[in-house]
């Protein structure tokens, strides 16, 4: 009997030794010496890589933001300010920018950040393929601390492109030295990647050589990967994590639950994604502009926004995020005006309404119900078909719907993607207006720049106002939960910089 028990124990020890390898379980974050300077940051999934030039995933980008310094960045009033560059100046026709790099700008290993580092980083092949660096024609470094960028064509929004983490800088030659996806040799951002083994925790340490390192309060950032939103919320409530980030935003019910807990708070930032009601123009009734105008005036966008997002009602898709300086004030969502809507219906080819099917995933079921009751006023009776989330995006792309919900947050995250919305030939096409007028106007606007572009975009906006290729419903916002005694600055254009946070 003893022989047998010994054998079982040996088997168990062998298996568990193999399993946990030689590493002792990770210690419990840096020992905080009285002053709390660590923050446990939750994100949904472990990023697949921290390669600043290739990383397509949202979470990877968020971490690159913290560890790679950029020439310029947004402040909390969404104005472009210098980060690694002290100052910059355009030439008159917006084809050349000259940056003056800060004297005290250093990498996390203490070496100086010079123009050559930028030139090296911007001239790797993956940089050339990156849309944000595509406009750069050539670069010069008159001296160590000045960088001159010559653009292919006059492009005023190039400055905006340089605020994204894609245009971060790494020490010259470091791309070849290490596999950049797992981390660079030295970091130019406020934080440096201290420890990251796949599957284990990811820890960032404050970069001592950061140009304003002295007022960075949080010294260590310990990332926790929790995929299930409910578990993350449980962790936040039990004080195991301090900041609940998820991927792009947290859900409505999490916001409600946090609201009931005074130890927690939420913070919101405008997001570049809009929720919209897409209309399939293959259906004659929806091809009639009067019907679209009628529906546009009948939708109660306040109620729809309340049930489907933490964001705000609104509708047009022309946001600062995409258009940079030449952003045209958006056409705000029209107020509900039933009489005018009924007039439009009467003027339309279908005065006494028609039947239409609205496909919706479970997360927009509530909004669908409101749309159904709103359109019923016009005699349009909507049957709601709930479709499985796994096939929702595919069926929208293939145009396999009459009316359907769509949000752009998870579909496009850069300019070209946005333009393609209107290109009938593009893979992602929403059957917007049977002809390609809106696409022609859109591509024309982007072939020019400066004042002509603004004029072209205004013309495009007016066309959309009149023709209504889709019905904008709400503007999503990114909302996150965090520990109430943590000060979180209002988020700037490109999301959250942890450097600005501190414990109260």
């Amino acid at each position, binding site marked *: 009997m003893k022989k047998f028990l010994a054998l079982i124990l040996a088997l168990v020890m062998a298996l568990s030794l193999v399993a946990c390898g030689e590493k002792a379980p990770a210690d419990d974050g840096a020992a905080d010496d009285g002053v709390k300077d660590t923050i446990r940051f939750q994100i949904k999934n472990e990023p697949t890589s921290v390669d600043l030039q290739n990383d397509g995933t949202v979470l990877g980008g968020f971490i690159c933001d913290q560890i790679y310094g950029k020439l310029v960045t947004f402040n909390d009033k969404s104005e472009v300010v210098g980060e690694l560059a002290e100052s910059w100046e355009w030439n008159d026709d917006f084809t050349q920018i000259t940056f003056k790099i800060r004297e005290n700008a250093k990498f996390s290993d203490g070496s100086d950040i010079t123009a050559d580092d930028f030139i090296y980083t911007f001239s790797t092949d993956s940089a050339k393929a990156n849309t944000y660096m595509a406009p750069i024609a050539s670069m010069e470094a008159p001296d160590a601390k000045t960088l001159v960028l010559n653009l292919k064509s006059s492009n005023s929004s190039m400055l905006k492109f340089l605020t994204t983490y894609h245009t971060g800088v790494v020490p010259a030659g470091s791309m070849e030295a290490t596999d950049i996806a797992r981390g660079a040799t030295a970091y130019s951002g406020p934080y440096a990647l201290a420890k990251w083994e796949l*599957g*284990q925790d990811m820890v960032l340490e404050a970069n001592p050589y950061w140009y304003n390192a002295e007022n960075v309060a949080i010294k260590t950032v310990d990332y926790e990967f929790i995929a*299930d939103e409910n*578990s993350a919320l449980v*962790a936040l409530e039990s004080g195991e994590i301090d900041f609940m980030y998820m991927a792009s935003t947290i859900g409505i019910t999490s916001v409600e639950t946090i609201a009931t807990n005074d130890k927690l708070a939420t913070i919101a930032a405008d997001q570049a994604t809009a929720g919209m009601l897409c209309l399939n123009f293959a259906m004659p009734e929806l091809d009639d502009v009067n019907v679209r105008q009628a529906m546009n005036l009948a939708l109660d966008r306040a109620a729809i926004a309340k049930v489907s997002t933490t964001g705000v009602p609104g509708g047009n898709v022309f946001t600062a995020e995409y258009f940079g300086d030449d952003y045209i004030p958006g056409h705000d969502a029209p107020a509900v005006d039933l009489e005018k809507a009924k007039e439009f219906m009467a003027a339309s080819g279908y005065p006494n309404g028609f039947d239409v099917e609205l496909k919706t995933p479970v997360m927009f079921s509530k909004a669908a119900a409101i749309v159904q009751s709103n359109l019923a006023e016009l005699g349009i009776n909507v049957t709601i078909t709930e479709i499985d989330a*796994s096939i929702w995006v595919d069926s929208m792309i293939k145009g396999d719907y009459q009316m359907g919900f769509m949000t752009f947050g998870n579909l496009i995250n850069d300019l070209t993607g946005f333009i393609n919305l209107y290109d009938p030939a593009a*893979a992602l096409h929403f059957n917007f207006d049977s002809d390609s007028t809106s696409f022609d106007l859109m591509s024309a606007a982007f072939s020019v720049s400066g004042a002509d572009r603004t004029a072209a975009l205004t013309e495009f906006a007016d066309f959309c106002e009149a023709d209504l290729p889709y019905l904008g419903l709400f503007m999503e916002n990114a909302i996150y939960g965090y520990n109430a005694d943590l000060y979180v600055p209002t988020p700037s254009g490109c999301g959250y910089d942890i450097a600005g946070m501190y414990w109260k």
Partner: protein
Amino acid sequence: MWRYILKRLLWLIPIILGVTLLVFALMSLKPGDPGRVYLGLNATQEAVDAYNESLGLNDPFFVRYFNYVKGLIKLDFGKSWVGGESVNDRIMSALPQTLKVCVYALVVAFITGLPIGILSAVKQYSLADRVLTIIAMILACIPVFWLCNMAAMLFTLKLHWLPATGLDTWKAYIMPVIGTAANTIGLTVRMSRSSMLDEMRKDYIRTARAKGAKEGSVIFKHALRNSLISVTTTLGVNFSILMGGTVFVENVYAIQGLGTCIVRSISNNDVPMLSGCVIILATFSVIVNLLVDLLYAYLDPRLRAKYVGKKKVAKARKEALNDAN
């Protein structure tokens, strides 16, 4: 004994190959367009086709399978469809967590299940037996994901005893391990109870009593040793049930194990990652089954003698004979 082990090991290879064929065939039925997923929705169709070509998706089925197996032999599970990350690294980093939870769960299940089973067998038809059997039955049927959620709510939110996520401190192990082990505890109790009852009815128990042995030694020395044999057979099956359960437990307690990989690859339709995880888990379950079979053969002298081979016994007799004369 070694001939038997070798034979079983040889049998392992076709089974693991069979598993890879099964999983690969299933996954190749999956309509999926890795190019589109990787390059994003606004990449041009040619770029997408080029990428698919590079992955070799257009080759005939058996060529693709052959390449896949060639990769497997070199322990290279190919590239994930999402973010092009190598599946290998992800699996190698996720495997320890899952194995830790599964092994500890197996031990916990065995250590709690067996004594309870014995107790309720020895005290048959007593109140304890009735109560324990019903609890064991409920434990065996409780849905894992529901149990974990409820436990997390109770112990983390209401009582603040246990941490909610991860496997950092030993306390963090408690809920995941018990969650994974719950079903197996139920099965072990039922299995050990019925095998103990069978053994207690056998004649050699009466012989032991007739020898004047204490009741305790009759139960533990004689009956338990025999019933352990049939209980160990369920060890192997239980281990693969445990691994099936990790998908849910790791999801609720945010453990970066293979279970989380599987859930993530389901939502991303990431086929190489899913098949990689499933094949690794299947391989481990097959290996553990083999280990359990060997343990079973070791425990049961009838089997062991058969594989020790006739030679040994014959040799013993020959020696005895030439001693005698």
